[in-house]
């Protein structure tokens, strides 16, 4: 146990320091190559480097490969390969906009290493209070669905400065705590880098952002989160910790009624006031989103909206931890 604690500290430090050290250089390189996008929520025209996915992946690879050097397990290998494939899908989307359906399908393919390496076994779905269900054939389908769903869910919450990385910091640490509660210590150890990578990236992503994660960053974080939830058999708990992002996707999809990229939506759900606060759009054709609902009671600054989302993330994290405790109880 002491060994694992020391290794946990080591890989957490590697994850944090790698992203913290690499990201400033990445910002310089991206800016030099004119890989920048406009931050539409700033009064003064501001260009922000994108994507930050490479530094996020570097942090994950450095820490997970170190962990693999100590504990060579197929579970860690599955996490590494799935996360890397999801990064490639996101990076391709950052470079050239992919179709609405291509991304979920490519992300589904990213889940194959989990199946091929047998990292999903035993194939059961655990529920709080009532135990688990063995669903050998169905579970394979579930594995293929979880990665694109979680990847796109995290991507959908990347709406304002610092929100995606801050949200994932909270959700990831909640997931680690949940994995410890359900006694999946090895997966808990492997989940530590996700929280620390998100935290280090938040330093540069928080308002005012110096870099955006892009699809490569958001999908990398989401896919790793999904892979950990499958390998640790905490799929339900993991989904609960992501509920604000799930709600955002649900509201969006239920208002546009089809799978579509956010950038394809013409009417913006949020507009700006004269003093450049965010305000809910009154355009009936604009999609309903989490931010639009937060702004329904009146305009707020970008920072204030971000903090409401973080409070929601903390609330969901608390519900996830309660659910993890409920996993240990059988009615």
């Amino acid at each position, binding site marked *: 146990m002491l060994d694992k604690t020391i290794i946990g500290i080591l890989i957490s430090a590697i994850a944090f320091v790698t992203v913290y050290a690499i990201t400033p250089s990445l910002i310089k390189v991206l800016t030099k190559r004119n890989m920048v996008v406009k931050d539409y929520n700033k009064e003064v025209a501001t260009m922000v480097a994108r994507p930050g996915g490479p530094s996020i992946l570097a942090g994950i690879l450095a820490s997970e490969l170190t962990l693999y050097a100590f504990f060579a397990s197929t579970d860690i290998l599955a996490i590494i390969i799935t996360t890397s494939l999801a990064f490639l899908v996101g990076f391709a989307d950052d470079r050239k906009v992919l179709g609405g359906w291509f991304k979920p399908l490519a992300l589904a393919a990213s889940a194959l290493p989990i199946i091929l390496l047998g990292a999903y076994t035993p194939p059961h779905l655990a529920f709080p209070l009532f135990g688990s269900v063995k669903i050998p054939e169905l579970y394979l389908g579930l594995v293929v669905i979880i990665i694109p769903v979680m990847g796109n869910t995290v991507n959908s919450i990347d709406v304002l400065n610092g929100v995606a990385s801050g949200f994932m910091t909270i959700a990831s640490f909640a997931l680690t705590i949940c994995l410890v509660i359900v006694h999946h210590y090895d997966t808990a150890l492997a989940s530590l880098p996700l929280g620390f990578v998100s935290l280090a990236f938040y330093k540069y992503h928080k308002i005012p952002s110096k870099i955006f994660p892009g699809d490569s960053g958001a999908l990398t974080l989401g896919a790793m989160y999904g892979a950990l939830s499958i390998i640790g058999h905490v799929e339900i708990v993991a989904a609960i910790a992501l509920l604000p992002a799930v709600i955002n996707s649900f509201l969006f999809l239920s208002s546009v009624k089809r799978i579509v990229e956010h950038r394809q939506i013409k009417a913006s759900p949020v507009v700006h006031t004269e003093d450049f606060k965010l305000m809910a759009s009154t355009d009936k054709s604009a999609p309903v989103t989490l931010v639009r*609902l937060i702004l329904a009671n009146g305009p707020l600054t970008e920072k204030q909206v971000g903090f409401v989302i973080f409070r929601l993330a903390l609330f969901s994290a608390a519900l996830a931890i309660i659910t993890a405790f409920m996993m240990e109880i059988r009615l």
Partner: protein
Amino acid sequence: MKGTPIFFYVFVMWLLIIAGGALIVPVIAHISIQGFGNLGGILDSIVKAGIAISLVALWILIMSKVKNWIFHKQIRH
């Protein structure tokens, strides 16, 4: 507090997930189709998958109704 209805919505979603477990584990997981030889296992999975998909559809429908109920004023606005 800002966004209070959304906190309530998250809480309702959580309750529905717990309720889903109450339905899936003690009831649906115990459904067993026998008497079809080797096809029994596949049929069993198909039936369970069908019920699970129906439950997800029902869950989405309920969430949509709850959303309209909680955010009635905001959506109208």
